[in-house]
């Protein structure tokens, strides 16, 4: 493992705020979110539905639908250049070429009327001056790389001829086509069954190693994070509540929400009547509470939590938490 100090910051997200202007009101989907993606790391973003993790990742590529969405504040610095200030034309060079996305729904993320080859070749030729025949060879190579058997035959298949797992591999091949330095994987395994999930996660890890990529992995599954990531960001109510390297987070979660999430994972060696749950509901994104957003569900909540919003602060080296009364940091390592 490389040491932390030598790592370069590839993507520096500063105070990102994304709102959706709906008929019911303004939805604050991402609220003042800041984080960094280092070169060569896999950064996990975990949170439940509506926590803002997907919108965060889409915002970095400016893929949110405008309207109703709008990135209202912040900076997304990609190798020092603010993505949010780029023109649509410049964005076309960034999408697929600098940052590429692996999508959640392998069944619908491919266009049904074009062959998978055509869809990969299109992505290749968008970012290089490669001839058609050469691009086709490269497409076959990419299919081989993502583990599709008989790629020279499969290249002419249509999406509906492939299984879900195979389609997800094709989507990864498309993401790799422009040779981007950053891959954003938005719930890449959610729609797949468990064995295929493991294969796809292994593939993403392999690609990160062999192709020298940095990966942002968005998931609601802490198990996926544990298997795959180096660092993890926990999101709740459009905010980051905890940020930590993976191992300490599992051993010693700091935020009560993270603690609750971890205790709700069923353990194989324990027999329980009922699974642990975090009581209550996520806050209404149309009317977020003034204080801590987790406070109504938090066992440790005090008066202060209702009134005063905790800010993200460093609790230990490399570990950030947004809580007035976090769990104690254990230093036995």
């Amino acid at each position, binding site marked *: 493992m490389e040491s932390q100090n030598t790592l370069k910051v590839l993507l520096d997200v500063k105070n990102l705020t994304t709102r959706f202007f709906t008929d019911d009101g303004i939805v604050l989907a991402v609220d003042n979110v800041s984080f960094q993606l280092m070169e060569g790391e896999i950064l996990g973003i975990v949170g439940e539905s509506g926590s803002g993790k997907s919108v965060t990742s889409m915002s970095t590529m400016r893929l949110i639908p405008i309207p109703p969405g709008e990135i209202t504040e912040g900076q997304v610095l990609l190798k020092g250049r603010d993505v949010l200030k780029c023109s649509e034309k410049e964005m076309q060079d960034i999408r*697929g070429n600098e940052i590429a*996305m692996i*999508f959640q729904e392998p069944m*619908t993320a491919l266009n*049904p009327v074009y062959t998978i080859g055509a869809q990969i070749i299109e*992505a290749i030729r*968008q970012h290089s001056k490669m001839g058609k025949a050469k691009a086709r060879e490269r497409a076959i190579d990419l299919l081989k790389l993502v583990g599709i058997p008989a790629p020279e035959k499969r290249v002419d298949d249509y999406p509906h001829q492939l299984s879900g797992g195979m389609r997800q591999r094709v989507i990864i091949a*498309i993401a790799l*086509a422009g040779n981007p330095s950053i891959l954003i994987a938005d719930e890449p395994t959610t729609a797949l069954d468990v064995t295929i999930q493991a294969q796809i996660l292994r593939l993403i890890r392999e690609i990160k190693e062999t192709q020298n990529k940095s990966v942002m992995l968005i998931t609601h599954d802490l198990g996926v994070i544990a298997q795959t990531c180096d660092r993890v960001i926990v999101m709740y109510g459009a905010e980051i509540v905890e940020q930590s390297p993976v191992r300490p987070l599992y051993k010693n979660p700091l935020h009560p929400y993270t603690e609750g999430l971890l205790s709700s994972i069923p353990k194989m060696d324990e027999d329980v009547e009922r699974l642990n749950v975090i009581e209550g509901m996520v806050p209404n994104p149309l009317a977020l509470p003034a204080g801590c957003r987790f406070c109504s569900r938090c066992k440790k909540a005090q008066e202060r939590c209702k009134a005063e919003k905790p800010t993200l602060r460093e609790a230990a080296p490399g570990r950030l938490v947004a809580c007035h009364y976090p769990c104690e940091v254990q230093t036995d390592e």
Partner: protein
Amino acid sequence: MGQFIGKRLLRGLLTIFVTMVVVFLLIRMAPGDPASILAGSMDTDEAFVESLREEWGLDEPILKQFTVYVKNLVTGNLGYSYQYLTHGKPNQPVISLILQRLPRTFILAASVIIFSILIAIPLGTICAMKPGSWFDNLTFSIQMTITSIPNFYIGMILIALLAVKWKLLPTGGYGDFNSFIMPMLCLSFRYIVTFTRTTRTELGQILNSDYLRTAKAKGLSRTVVLFKHGLRNVLIPIVTMIGTRLGGLLTGAVYVETLFRYYGVGELLISAISARDYPTIQAVIPYIAAVFVIVNLAVDMSYFALDPRIRKK
């Protein structure tokens, strides 16, 4: 594929045969026969009517009449229209009546479809790209208004304005381009509305689809995303829609043809029915059935070209 077409054609033939039986029986069940209706307008005696019936074979048993009808139709002998007589003898072969009317109906149908598509697809695309915008809402309101006005009334408004008030176009007729414009416009309104709605709805869904987001994430330009990935998928529902409408147009638009004295197949059929002109009715109805069979088959065939999910099954 070949087997599919063969099956569909066989089923189509059956459809045509059934319509032949139905129409043959229906017109004979209607009060009055061609001889009496013709005689009624000519001040003739009963003996002449009888002689006409005999000559046209209307006194034969019904089964015999039907076999003669089927045999004639299969051999392409459509007989003479009972409507047009010189010295008591029919002089207009049905086939020449139909051939005279067909090009008019075809040209009108094709122009209406093409004109409507040229207006509706861009209109629907703009609406789909900005749903809820003032343009989308305005288009929707205008469409609702048009839909709630009957076609013949739109035709009458057109005549009142374009022909009578502003004297831009003739009130009707056939032959030159000017008299062609109003029937085409009148028919197109309805189709523009339907086609725009379909484009708007279908494209609206596709624009929100995951594969369009994938296309955008590749770094493709908006134009490529919209035209290459969006419209190609919209073509499938649009072709279906055109298919269902084209059948109706190719078999004649009765009101509009009558209103503008643009005599096509629809008008031929209506006048034949009021004259109990059996040979003409019995030829036009199977033609209509055949048009529907062929158009439906053509739509299904176009799916093979447009949608690979059907092709490879």
